[in-house]
C-alpha cells in the first residue's frame, strides 16, 4: 500500500508540467515583470527535474503571490506578509518537500519584515523569491518599502519621505546564506540563479527586480543591466561576507542612480541549516514527521508514561 511516498525523483520534467491546464483568473497585466519570474521558476525546476508534486510553493498576498494561480504544484496562497513561517514549518515537518516561498516587496520587506529577518537568521533550507517592483500593485500604486525616496501616489502625494529598504544588505545582516539579485529582463541569468538558489542548502534570498507597467511607469525597466559576475569592473569574493556587503551596498546605491547591477552576491556553503543545527542538539527528528502518521508500526509515546514524575 502506498500511503505517503513523497519525493526525491530525478525524472525529466518538462517546463509545461508546471502550467495548470485551467486558465488562471487574469490578474497580471500585460507586460508585467511577474511573468518573467514565473518563467524562470518553471525553467529552474524543470532543469532540476523536480516533480510538481514534491514542490510546495507558498506565497503571501499581492500580485506577486498570485503566482500560485499560474503554477501547478502543491500551493499555499496565504496572507499578507506571512508566507515564510508557513513555508519553513512545512519544510521542518516534511524536509523532502522542495519549499519555495514567494511574495512582493511590500509583502516581504514591509509587513513580513520580521519573518524575513528571522527566517534568514535561522537559515531554513528553502528559497525565498521577492518580486521587487518598487510599488504596491494590487492596491493600485502606493509606495512600497523599496520605492525610491520621493515616489508619489494617491497616498504619497508629496512624495515618499523615507529612504528605501536595502533588501540585499538586509538579507545579509539577517543571516541568509545565499543572496542574489536578478531581473525580469535577464531571463537566462534569472533561471541560473534560481537553480543555484534552490540547490543551495540553507536560506536562499533572491531579490527579483520586476517592472510594474501599470502603476510604476516611472520606474526604470532595469535596462541596461550589468551582471556583476560578467563585468570586469566588479571583483569581489562572494564567500567573503565583508566584500559581499560592500558590493551589495554599492549595488543598492547604484539602482536609484540608474545603474542596474545584478548577479550573485553572497554564498556560504559552510553554514549548517537550521534543521541540521537542531539535529545536532537532539531537537529535530531525522525522519520526516509526516511519514510517522502513515507508519502502522510506529510506536506512539503516551502521556501516561510521563506521569511518574507527578506522583
Amino acid at each position: 500500500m502506498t500511503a505517503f511516498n513523497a519525493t526525491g525523483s530525478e525524472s525529466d520534467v518538462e517546463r509545461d508540467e508546471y502550467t495548470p491546464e485551467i486558465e488562471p483568473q487574469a490578474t497580471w497585466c500585460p507586460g508585467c515583470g511577474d511573468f518573467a519570474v514565473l518563467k524562470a521558476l518553471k525553467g529552474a525546476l524543470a532543469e532540476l527535474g523536480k516533480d510538481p508534486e514534491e514542490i510546495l510553493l507558498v506565497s503571501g498576498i499581492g500580485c506577486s503571490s498570485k503566482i500560485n494561480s499560474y503554477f501547478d504544484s502543491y500551493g499555499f496562497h496565504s496572507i499578507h506578509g506571512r508566507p515564510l513561517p508557513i513555508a519553513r514549518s512545512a519544510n521542518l515537518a516534511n524536509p523532502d518537500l522542495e519549499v519555495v516561498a514567494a511574495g512582493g516587496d511590500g509583502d516581504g520587506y514591509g509587513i513580513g519584515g520580521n519573518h524575513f529577518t528571522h527566517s534568514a537568521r535561522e537559515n531554513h533550507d528553502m528559497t525565498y523569491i521577492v518580486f521587487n517592483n518598487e510599488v504596491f500593485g494590487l492596491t493600485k500604486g502606493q509606495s512600497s518599502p523599496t520605492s525610491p525616496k520621493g515616489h508619489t501616489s494617491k497616498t504619497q502625494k508629496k512624495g515618499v519621505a523615507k529612504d528605501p529598504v536595502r533588501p540585499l544588505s538586509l538579507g545579509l545582516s539577517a543571516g541568509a546564506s545565499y543572496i542574489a539579485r536578478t531581473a525580469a529582463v535577464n531571463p537566462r541569468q534569472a533561471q541560473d540563479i534560481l537553480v543555484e538558489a534552490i540547490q543551495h542548502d540553507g536560506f536562499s534570498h533572491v531579490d527579483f527586480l520586476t517592472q510594474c507597467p501599470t502603476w510604476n511607469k516611472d520606474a526604470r525597466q532595469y535596462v541596461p543591466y550589468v551582471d556583476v559576475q560578467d563585468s570586469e569592473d566588479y571583483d569581489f569574493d562572494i564567500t567573503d561576507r565583508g566584500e559581499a556587503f560592500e558590493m551589495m551596498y554599492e549595488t543598492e546605491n547604484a539602482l536609484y542612480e540608474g545603474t542596474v547591477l545584478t548577479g550573485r552576491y553572497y554564498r556560504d556553503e559552510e553554514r549548517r541549516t537550521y534543521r541540521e543545527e537542531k539535529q545536532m542538539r537532539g531537537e529535530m527528528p531525522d525522519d520526516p514527521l509526516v511519514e510517522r502518521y502513515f507508519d502502522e508500526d510506529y510506536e506512539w509515546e503516551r502521556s501516561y508514561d510521563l506521569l511518574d514524575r507527578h506522583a
Partner: protein
Amino acid sequence: MTTDELIWRISGGSGDGVDSTSQNFTKALMRSGLHVFTHRHYPSRIRGGHTYVEVRASAEPVASRGDGFNVLLTLGDSFARNTDEDAVYGNEAIKPLSENLDELRDGGIIVFDSGQVDIEEVPNFEERAEEHDWQVFPVDLRGIAKEHGREIMRNTAGVGATAALIDMDLDPVEDLMAEAMSGDILEANLDVLEDAHDHVTEEFDTDTGLSVPQGEHDEEQVLLSGSHGISYGAIDEGCRFISGYPMTPWTDVFTIMSQELEEMGGIAEQVEDEIAAAAAAIGASHAGAKAMSGSSGGGFALMSEPLGLAEMTETPLVLVESMRAGPSTGMPTKTEQADLEHVLYTSQGDHSRLAFAPGDPVEAYEQTRKAFELAWKYQMPAIVIYDSKLAGEYRSVPKSAFDQEPNPDLGSTLTEDELADAPHDDTGRFQRFQHDVEDDVSPRSLPGQENGRFLATGNEHWPNGQIAEDTTNRVNQVDRRLGKLSSVRDDLNAMEESFQSHWGTEDAEIGVLTWGSTQDSVEEAVENLAATGRPVAGLGVSEIAPFPEAEIVEFVESVDEVMIVEMNASAQFRGLLQKELGAYGQKISSLLKYNGEPFRAGEIEEAIEIELNGGGEPTAQVTLRPATGD
C-alpha cells in the same frame, strides 16, 4: 465545606522559594493519602512582590481552593529589606504577614519568621489575633536556616515548624527532598527541617487542635495542573509540532510541550511573534503533522489573521487561549474569563471554528483530545480556552484517567491509494474542496502525495482550490464550511457522556450556570447548598462552539431562574447564551467577578442565598446583575 480539611498558606516575596516549597509540601500530603488542591497568587515580577500559595488537603476529593484557610506560614518580608540596593523590590506597604490575615479562619495558626518580622510593625496585630483566637508562633526561621546552611533555607525551616503544629509526618517531605537534591545541600536541608521541627516542639505547646487529616486513596493519584492536562491530551493525539511565543500563562503549555516533544522526537519552535506561531502551526499541519500553537489574550489577538486563514483553507489546527485579566496587558498573572468573545468572534468573515472550555485537568486532557480529533476530522481550527486559574492550579487527579490509547489518526486525510480513486476534474486536478460531501467534509491530500495537487488559499476558491468569485460556488463553499459545525454538534451529541457537568438537586428553583474553570467553585457552592436542602442545581458548560443548545435549554427550562457565574465584567457567556437561544432573558441574571481572583464557593453561596431569599448587596467584591427587565 469539608470539615476535616487543612488549608495551608505559605506567603513571601517572589524568589523566597514559595513555589517550590509549596509543591513539595503538596506532594507530601498527596503521598500521605490525601486529595490536594493548590491556588497560586503571584505578581508579574522576577524578584520581590507579594506571593502566596494555598494548599487545601482533605481525605475527600477537593476540586477548589475552598473558603479561607487555617494555617499561615509567612517567610517574612525579604523583598522590603533590600535597602542596600537602589532597586526597590516590591511594595513596601505589602507584607507577607499583614497581607495574609484577612482570610485566616478563627482559631487558625500563624507561623512567622521572627528573625525578619517585628510583630509590632503589623497594625493591630494583637487585637486581631485575640479577636479571632489565632494561635501565633514566632519562630526564628532565618536563624535556624543560617545555623545549618544558608539563609535561603528558611522556607525549609518553615515547613519543619508548621509540621510540628499540625502533626504532620516528615518522612514524605524528606523523601521528596532526597529526590530533588543530594550531597551537602540535602544534608543541610534535612538538618534545617528537623531542627525547626524540634525547636517548635520544645518551645511551644503544639496541641493546636489542628492536624493533617488522615486519608487513603482508592486509586493512585498524580499532581497536575490544567496546563498538563492540555499538553498530555495533545501528546496522546499525536501532536508532534508546537510553535509559540512566550506569554503568561500560555507559557506553561508551551514549556511542557517543548520539553516533552524534544524528548519524543517532535518539533518545538519558539518563533518571532504570535502571527508566525499560528502561521507555523498551519504550515506544519498543511504538510501533514498534527500541530498546535496558542497564546494568551494579547498574543492571541495577533493570531486573528492566521486563524481565519486556517478556517478558509480548512487546515486542521489546535490553538490554546490561556486567558488572563485584560484588556491589553491587563494583569499578567491574574485570572479572568473575559476573552470568550475574542476567541469566538476574532478575525473577519463567518466562522467555522470549534471551542472547548475545560474545567479541570482531566477535562483539559479529554477536551484537548476531542479538539484534535474533531479538528482533523472536520478540517478546521479548534480552540481550547482556559485561564490563569486552571493553568496554574495543581490538584490530585486519578492517574487512571490518563491510561488511554494514543490516537495519531489524521482524520479525513487520504492515503496515496485513496487519492488515486478520489474525485479529480477533467483536467486531472484533485477536487480538494468539493461541494456536496458527507458531513460537509471534503477529504484532503498532503503536499508530496501523488495525484493530490491543489492550491490552498485564503481567497474563496473552486473545488480544485483555484481562486473564484463565482456566486454559486461561493454559496456552496460557505454553506459547506459552516455546515461542518452541525456535523460536529451531532458527533458531540452522540457521545456517551457530554462534556458538561451537572450538580445539585432535582426540582431545583435556581439553576447556576457557569463555564470553564469557574465550574469547580460553582460545583462546591451548589453541593454545599444542596446539602443544606436548598433547591439549587448547577451546570458547568465546556462545549462552547458549536453551542450545546439542547442541553442548555433543558437545564434553563428545568428551573425558575438561572444565575450565570463568570469571571468578567460584561457577562460574556450570558451574551453568548442569549445570542444562541434568543429567549429566557427574563429569567437569567449574572454573578460576576473581575478583581483578578477566582470565585470562592462562599461568595457564590451568598449570592444564591440573596437570589433565593432576597437581601442586600453581596459582601465580597462581586457584582450581581439582574435579569432583563428587572
